[in-house]
């Protein structure tokens, strides 16, 4: 299964990933990080396709994607 990880201290809560995700995996949470931002959380983790659209979109490189090695072959984009 692909898994999106959020580095909460990097997230600025801009919501761009939320809008970019075709699967509704992500949403802004209600917790604040150390810089005063409400950061993103996985709300539907199981729906993740591993498409990386959220990663490519995030201006703060707050998201990373881990996949089970056998599952996909990811091209360098």
């Amino acid at each position, binding site marked *: 299964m*692909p*898994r999106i990880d959020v580095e909460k*201290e*990097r997230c*600025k*809560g*801009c*919501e*761009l990933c939320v*809008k*970019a995700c075709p699967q509704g995996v992500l949403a802004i949470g209600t917790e604040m990080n150390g810089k005063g*931002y409400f950061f993103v959380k996985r709300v539907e983790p199981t729906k993740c396709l*591993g498409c*990386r*659209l959220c*990663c*490519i*979109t*995030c*201006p*703060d*490189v707050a*998201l*990373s*994607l*881990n*996949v*089970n*090695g*056998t599952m*996909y072959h*990811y091209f*360098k*984009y």
Partner: protein
Amino acid sequence: MKDKLAFGYPEGLTTGGTHYCPGCTHGIIHRLIAEVIDELGVRERTVGVSPVGCAVLAYNYFSTDYQEASHGRAPAVATGIKRARPDLMVYTYQGDGDLASIGMAEIVHAANRGEKFTVVFVNNAIYGMTGGQMAPTTMPGQVTSTSPRGRELDLAGHPIRMVELISTLHTPAFVARGTVIRPLQAVQTKELLRRAFQYQKEGKCFSMVEILSTCPTNWGMPPAEALNWLEKTMMPYYPLGVFKTPEEGVDRAPLPLCGLQDGGK
């Protein structure tokens, strides 16, 4: 089987995080540059040049040697570096105020001399760092803190298209425009950056990639809305594409509208 990282943090970036506003696409552009530097394997001989503008602290964000240029003069600084050490990979990162306003002479001349470095030109149609004044690339009617009635074309003229302007120079160059507002466009822009750096690596020519970018803070709109505004307002005026390549036979210097025969009518 162990998990495998399919998207992670590029080595070309330092890990500290940036000062950019939430949703500002400066951050995406940074990442794309870092990835290209990583993928070309040139990090250890790359020197960046930061502008004066929101990216003034870029030297803190890229894990390469860096120089901070005075406002608009990054192309002159890069010329100095590259002429001193042609073995280095050199790029400037410049905003639209920096490059298209105060730095107009420096960018045109560096391009025209065919300096073998790469320019990443981040056009967000405004002066971000100083709090939202009009830029040469500000759109007609766009309200900024120094165009409170919107950019008035009869007083401030039309927005400048730098890629088009630089493309008219006869000196071979690679000149292109992209944006990062959607994932696909980010991927395409990365490709433009890769080509730009590749031409430099081969010592071929000057290269410049203009990237349309957002400034949610000074445009006064949420980040996602800013992407849409860019698409709707800026993209029709600033078409994406490759405008000039160094290959032979693609010089497109304009010809006169009409000969002197009918001049004066």
